[in-house]
């Protein structure tokens, strides 16, 4: 019987370094949520998403967000067939198991909304038809922290729909050396499927059954509430953040083969759940404050049970 750990191992064979990213992607998949990836170009964001889809034998679609993108380019449209005299539905790229929304902040709000509505409902309406997405369904959206010109910042209500935000850093020197060596002669073998879509659905069901003790539930709620009581934060995390943190903590416990959540599960995942949900005071930007440090301080301030 396959385990999510097999997917992590398969991804690590293709992606050098980025272990936290790989684990976060698998956790989000098991937790049934979507992930926002932020990192400089060329740090294997797209490769990681494509490899994830391949590892679970799922369909993969990539949408490059641009300012002239239309909602129908994502969800699909209806085309009139002259021969039959009827409208036929053409499904857009969102109908896939793993959807990579590349540079999501480059498309206007109307297009972002079309994607985010689908993320929430797991279905899209094309003309008179409401069509479900294939399950499992996960959107992995990327954002480039540079080149902010010509971008459309995602509203907090939309950011809140992402289970977690992963920040990808540059690889270490050794990792970079391994990357160059690995790709020097030929393209390395791509990930082959180590699990099935049925496996993923089973993982999602089983991870929801992982036990969450009341004290750990209160601990994660305290962390979320602490984000609303911080001087540097003008808008703290929503109750959806608490749900996301509970779901991801369960997924982490499941990934580690435990039947119960520990305080470490919560504490290690809290930054990923909180960082994109907080609105920081203008003084943080004005004084070159570090939002990551503020999030870390919020988490550290709450004592674990």
């Amino acid at each position, binding site marked *: 019987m396959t385990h999510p750990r097999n997917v992590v191992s398969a991804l690590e064979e293709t992606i050098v370094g980025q272990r936290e990213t790989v684990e976060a992607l698998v956790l989000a998949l098991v937790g049934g949520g979507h992930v926002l990836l932020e990192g400089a170009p060329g740090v294997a964001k797209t490769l990681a998403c494509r490899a994830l889809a391949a590892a679970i034998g799922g369909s993969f679609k990539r949408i490059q967000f641009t300012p002239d993108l239309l909602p129908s380019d994502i969800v699909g449209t209806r085309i009139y067939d002259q021969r039959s005299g009827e409208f036929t539905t053409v499904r857009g790229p969102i109908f896939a198991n793993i959807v990579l929304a590349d540079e999501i902040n480059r498309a206007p709000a109307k297009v972002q909304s079309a994607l985010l509505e689908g993320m929430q409902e797991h279905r899209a309406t094309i003309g008179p038809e409401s069509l479900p997405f294939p399950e499992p369904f996960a959107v992995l959206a990327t954002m480039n922290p540079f080149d902010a010109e010509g971008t459309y910042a995602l509203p907090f209500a939309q950011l809140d729909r992402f289970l977690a935000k992963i920040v990808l850093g540059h690889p270490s020197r050794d990792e970079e050396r391994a990357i160059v060596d690995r790709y020097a002669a030929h393209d390395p073998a791509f990930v082959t499927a180590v699990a099935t879509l049925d496996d993923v659905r089973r993982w999602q069901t089983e991870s929801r059954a992982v*036990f969450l*003790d009341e*004290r750990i539930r209160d601990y994660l709620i305290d962390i979320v509430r602490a984000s609303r009581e911080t001087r540097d934060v003008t808008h703290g995390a929503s109750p959806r953040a608490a749900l996301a943190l509970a779901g991801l903590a369960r997924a982490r416990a499941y990934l580690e083969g435990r039947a*119960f*959540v520990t*305080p*470490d599960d919560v*504490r*290690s995942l809290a930054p990923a759940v909180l960082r994109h949900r907080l609105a920081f005071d203008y003084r943080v930007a004005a004084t070159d404050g570090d939002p990551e440090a503020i999030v870390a301080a919020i988490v550290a301030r709450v004592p*674990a049970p």
Partner: protein
Amino acid sequence: MSVALAGPQAPAAPYPRLHIVAMGMHADRRRVAPHDRFTVTIDVVITQKRDRLDELVLGNFDDCTIVGDERRHTALPNGETRFLEVLTLEAGVPGTAKISPAHLDAIDPKVGRPLRYSTDPVSVQVTQAAPIDTTYASLSATLGRYARWLTVIIGILAFAWFGFRFALGRRRARSVPAPMPAPEPAPAAALPPPPATLALALDAFVRARDERTLLALRAQLFAEAGVAAGATLADALARPGLRRALRVALGAAEAAAFGPRAARASAGDALIEATQADLASGEAT
């Protein structure tokens, strides 16, 4: 008190079945002059009713001479029995007089295995200089000196206060903080409470098997690892040089504290076993 599995060299048959609640040893003075006398008291509390505790083995007193040994026992209201063995010792040459731990081998009825319960060692400094006298006999003289100084200070303060009131001609009563009362000497308790140790926390959990004692045992394991309350298992495991048996016990505590309710009984058993193994390593407090 620390607990370890009784050594294989000890015969298994004579071990009594005793439930040790507390065990400690302390000296009434920390610093003495050569040939001064001081007392070392060994305190043992057991749940059974007994008149004697012959199994108690005293440690070594190489640096001093035993000049008196008094044993007494008290039946406590909750059915437990408290044994006190008061040793009067005479200090030897200057240096550190070390009294090694007293121990007691017994089969814990809850665990069903022989365990060795030990006290902490006690050290007394033997100095040539006039020792800092902490005996109760000299306490009143010391307090008397402090009281005289305190009376003078209070008098000066009172005089200054009345002068101040008179100069201002105020009639309105002002609230002046009362001078701090002289600290009362602590009651001369026979023995201080035994220190909280892993063995005691384990014993309490074995007896009660409830959430309160479970969390106390988990907290004690965290303390053993050198992390404060509010830390997580990862913090504890990240401590350098953490002994392997303690790692296992910490993991078992996590399962017992946060695992599914249906599995907590077995997780508690695993925690007891792991903690006993850690205690048996001889490095736990």
